[in-house]
Each structure stands twice: as structure tokens, then as C-alpha cells.
């Protein structure tokens, strides 16, 4: 606690110009993270190139807390592909396997898709909105290309305990703002 109070005291005694510089430096660091996210969006052609598995419906292939990397290339999906889709008016993406495909037209990308979680007993029709029996390409965020196990648990913890998120951000900001840059 004394260490944290020390950092707070140091921040309070910093010159105004230095505070502005440190805030700009902090914002550049945050901006770098956002730019990396945007770079991943461009490279993967997916709006959300990284997702975290939130439930156990795809066990044993993917466990809760796994980080998944997506792409959304201009290629038709195949049965057995693991895809991520989002139902209209819902924020939470769902990671399930393609169970059946129907061709809607001559365009190979115009597909109707039915999905099911590996660990579920029935297909996902109960999850789809009323009167929707199939997923369309516009519902899909991407196809899984890679996985990083367990790392996403931090995200789950931060979502389940929002106060932890604010404490972590607050402490990180304080340390960055009072960091003794070797150049300064």
C-alpha cells in the first residue's frame, strides 16, 4: 500500500508538462495495442480476429479460456469447420462446428449453415432467432485457424469481476505515468 501511495505522491508532484508527456506516452501505448488489433483485422479479413471461448460446449476440442484466432477469407465453409458466429441483437459470439451445409444459389459463398457444439446433444437451432433455421454468411465472424490454450482466462476473470478490471487498469496507468524512462 505504501508503494502505491508513493507512486500517487510522485505523480502529484510532477510538473504539468511532464504529466502531459506521460499521458501522451500512455495513450500511444494504448493506441499501439489498438493498432495491432486493427492490423489483425486487416490480415485476417475478420471483424473480430481473436475471440475467447466462454463455455464448455466445444470440449474436448476447445476449453473455456482458450483464445481462438479467426480468418474470414473468400472461401466457402465445409462440414467440420469450426466457425464463430454471432446471432442478431446479441453481443456474445458462439464457437461451434459446422454440421450441415445447404447451397442457397450457384454462388459457392452463398451457403446456409447449421452448427452444433461438440459437447452438446442437439444442434444450435434452439440458439438461433425465432424463424431462423440456418445461419447465413452475414451471421458468421470467421473460421478458427489457431488456438492459444488457457490464456483467455484473464479476460473471463476481468469480465466476471469488473472491479478487478478497473483496479488493474488504474495500477498499470499509475506505474506507466510515473515510470522513470531512462531517456528522461
Amino acid at each position, binding site marked *: 500500500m505504501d508503494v502505491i501511495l508513493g507512486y500517487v505522491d510522485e505523480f502529484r508532484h510532477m510538473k504539468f508538462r511532464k504529466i502531459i508527456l506521460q499521458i*501522451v506516452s500512455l495513450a*500511444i501505448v494504448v493506441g499501439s495495442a489498438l493498432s495491432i488489433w486493427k492490423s489483425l483485422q*486487416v490480415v485476417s479479413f475478420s471483424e473480430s480476429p481473436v475471440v475467447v471461448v466462454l463455455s464448455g460446449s466445444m470440449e474436448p476440442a476447445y476449453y473455456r479460456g482458450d483464445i481462438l484466432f479467426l480468418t474470414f477469407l473468400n472461401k466457402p465453409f465445409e462440414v467440420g469447420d469450426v466457425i464463430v458466429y454471432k446471432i442478431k441483437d446479441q453481443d456474445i459470439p458462439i464457437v461451434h462446428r459446422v454440421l450441415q451445409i445447404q447451397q442457397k444459389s450457384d454462388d459457392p459463398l452463398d451457403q446456409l449453415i447449421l452448427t452444433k457444439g461438440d459437447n452438446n446433444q442437439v444442434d444450435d437451432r434452439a440458439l438461433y432467432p425465432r424463424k431462423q433455421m440456418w445461419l447465413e454468411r452475414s451471421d458468421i465472424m470467421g473460421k478458427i485457424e489457431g488456438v492459444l490454450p488457457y490464456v483467455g482466462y484473464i479476460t473471463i476473470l476481468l469480465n466476471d469481476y469488473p472491479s478487478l478490471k478497473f483496479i488493474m487498469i488504474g495500477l498499470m496507468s499509475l506505474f506507466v505515468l510515473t515510470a*522513470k524512462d*531512462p531517456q528522461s
Partner: protein
Amino acid sequence: MVKESKKKIYRTENKFDTYMTKDAFCSFISDELISKDGLKENYKFQNFKVFFGLFMIANVIYSHYHFIPYPQDYYILIACIIFYYISTYIYQWFEKVKEGDIFILYDDKKANKTFGFGASQELYQRFVVLRIYNMPNKALLVERKIDSADYLDVKGYIVQPKMRSLINELLQEANKK
């Protein structure tokens, strides 16, 4: 009743922490330079970093909040990313090359010149190299290697009179050239 202003403490809490030691020295030297008659701090480098940094941040914010849905904004994203990487390179170049080890720029009104005071210290080494540059071409005027232990007391406080006379010595040497 006169209110006493709180005296600033120049101290390194850990003499083996090179960052803390260098920071204490730089802090003391900066305050000493600013307090001298005829010397005034020059904010050119700091202003550039702030404004260029804000420019970079504005680009990043625009890349996220331009209200065109993905994937219609694909080429806008590419442009923002390219601009981000180029501007980061420029910012890093400015910090590492142009600014280098300079921690304060000051204007000498009598000589009508701008100087930069720099300090560098190798990691886990006691020695600090102090330099004075003639700006804007960053020509080295004075360089002095000091043992930080000679200028710190047992508890890590800077020995101010000794440090002050060193600064005066360096400034006189720089003014001769």
C-alpha cells in the same frame, strides 16, 4: 505568517537502481539550470513529442471510430495502419536519435544559443556520463564521466554543493567553446 515552500528532495531510494539514480541526477540538474539567471528551459522537444503524439492518437481513434462498418472500411484501416507504423518509426527516431540522452534543452540568453544537457548510464554501472550539446546540430561541447557514488551520501541523497559546483564547471567549459 509565512508559508514555507516544501523543499524538493533529490534522492535515489536504491543506489543500485540505475534508472532511479540517473533520474535523481537529471531532476537536480534540470532544477539547477532553470534557477540560474540567464538560462531558460526550451520546450521544443517536448512540444514536438506532445503534438506528434496527439497526431498519432488521433489517427488511432479515427481508425476505430470512423463509423463505417467492417468490411467497407478495409482500405481506410490499411491507410491508418500504414500511417501508424510510419509515425511510430518517426517518433522512435526522434526519441532515440534526435533527442538521444538529452533530458533538458535550455536557452542561454547572454550567448543567444540553445544547449542540450544529456546524461547516460550503463545498466548496473555506477558511472554517469554528463554531456552538453550545442543545439540544433547536437555538436558535443562537454563530456564528463562521474562516479555516482561520489555525489550521493550514505542514504542516497545528492550531495548538492558538490553537484552544483560540477554543473557550474561544465557550463563554464561549454561557454568557452
